[in-house]
């Protein structure tokens, strides 16, 4: 089964329309004009909001392109998106844990975990690469360049 050719981008158009609406609502409270008569802080965000709304509408209304209907196996798409989501969660967990776990422990875990998610299966590489990388970061950033790391 393949993805429907040229499916209209409702979701992204909806997200852009929501951002535009947020801008328009929020900018309603800004001053409209400067005391000297020039355009105030509201002008530019309102213009952006209207243009973004127009682009969202154009995305949905324009003729569908052949190129937009690139065939993709939905299973592959789900697997790839899932892997990326897990990667994002792993990075977020690293950032959340960074204040509590020493860098020399957290960094190899981050790199090793992402390697495993990316499909690396060699136990030797999964162990060695993160350790060598952490050592290089310590030598390169901290010792040679003196960059303060968290």
């Amino acid at each position: 089964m393949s993805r429907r050719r040229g499916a209209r981008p409702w979701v992204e158009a909806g997200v852009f329309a929501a951002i535009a609406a947020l801008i328009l609502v929020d900018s309603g409270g800004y001053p409209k004009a400067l005391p000297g008569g020039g355009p105030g802080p509201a002008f530019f965000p309102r213009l952006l909001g209207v243009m973004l709304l127009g682009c969202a509408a154009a995305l949905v209304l324009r003729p569908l392109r052949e190129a937009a209907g690139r065939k993709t196996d939905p299973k592959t798409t789900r697997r790839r998106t899932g892997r990326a989501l897990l990667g994002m969660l792993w990075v977020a967990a690293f950032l959340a844990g960074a204040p509590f776990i020493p860098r020399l422990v957290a960094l190899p875990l981050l790199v090793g975990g992402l390697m495993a998610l990316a499909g690396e299966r060699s136990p030797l590489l999964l162990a060695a690469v993160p350790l060598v990388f952490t050592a290089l970061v310590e030598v390169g950033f901290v010792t040679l360049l003196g960059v303060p790391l968290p």
Partner: protein
Amino acid sequence: MADFLSGLLSVLTPGSLLSILAGSVLGVFAGAVPGLSSTVGLALVLPVTFALDPAPALLMMISLYMAAEYGGSITAVAIGVPGSSPALATTFDGYPMTRRGEVGRALGISLFSSMSGGLLGTILLVAALAPLARAAIAFGPAEFFGLGVFGLAIVANLVGKDPLKGIVSALLGLTAFVVGLDVLTGAPRLTFGSSLLMDGLALVPMLIGFFAIAEALESIASGRRRTRRLAGAGSGFPRLRELLGLWPSILRGSAIGGLIGVIPGAGATIASIVAWNEERRVAKRPERFGQGEPAGIAAPEAANNACVGAAMIPLLALGIPGSASAAVLLGGLTVQGVAPGPLLMTERAGLVYALYAGFFIAVATMFAVGRLGIPLWVRVVAIRPAILMPMIVAVSLIGATALRGNPADAWAALFFGIIGFALLRRGYPLAPAVLGLILGPMIETNYRRALTLSSGSHAVFAENPICLILLVFGLLSFAAPMVRNRLGRQRATP
């Protein structure tokens, strides 16, 4: 001349030379590995440059930018896959030469042409920067508004395959700029009462998130694998006589690269394709192109390296980054407290002359690194993304945190990485968004200043010839995708 010699002397220090060498090695690496690029490479070294003085920091970034343009050709020649998009045209004749067993010859031609193109692009930079900066000193708010709109419109339309998506990306970048305090009145905008958002969204975490983390996430998600290796790349380097015989192609390619490189958004990819096409057009035997014709490597490689020096002209003279790589370079300048624009030549003349001299040394270093390392660079092609990309994510997070010692910047980089990943997945180019964040202040502030000075009359933009020309060209850029598609069709039938 005395200023140039003084700049040269300031570059001939161990720190600056080491920075150029490191930038060149990293640049060839970033260019050669598919999935990386000069932009990703520059985003990754940004954290390293925090610890350096302005001259060595900028020289490292410039040499990386230059070397990455050559690095892309290694993969293009060796396995027929461009390491980065500007090397696309090099695959047309480079890979057929490899299949004939002439990989060393093809890489030699590519390296020599890259060096020559880089040299000619640098000469163009030296010749054009000062006059342009002098002309721009007379610019008022209307001209700067026109310049900002022109730069953003042309990038939004030329980058990526779909102009509408480029425009949406630019609008999102402009929206990101609005977050924070209004520059003219101090009124909070899109902060939703959060004190964290009062300072606005920082550029460097956005650059790192968009160009390093998003690309790495994309690569991790797709699980791309490369295991192809190539032997014998170090042998068969062409003789000097053969290389010198390619001068007409190199000169034509460099001229095209220099001209196109100055235009924001056009960039090295378009320049190299146009150069290849032009070379085929003027050739006595055009049927040889696409079959392993040396001139088909020389012209595009000279063009994409000439673009590097040319792209620095609008960046340094006007503060307009014409490409994603130039935008990251602008981030590097900002971090170092260097404000590009018309006054740069007068306020930081020493630094500018050091950059001129550094460019020449960077070109020579690129040649040395490329020549000595050909057997090594061909092996780089075989590095698996599963090993490389996690390290890129880790360096990105470390770099974002190290910028101000603030862990919130690492979270911001991850946030932008996720947004960038989602945009990439849906086919939205990221460069216009970054350009929107960078050019937003120039566009809005000068628009409002011009209107205030003209008592609210929009005629000020039409009455100002430079502004009018720039706005018209910005509008005309909407026709550029049609021209590009036509070129693409021509390319598809070599």
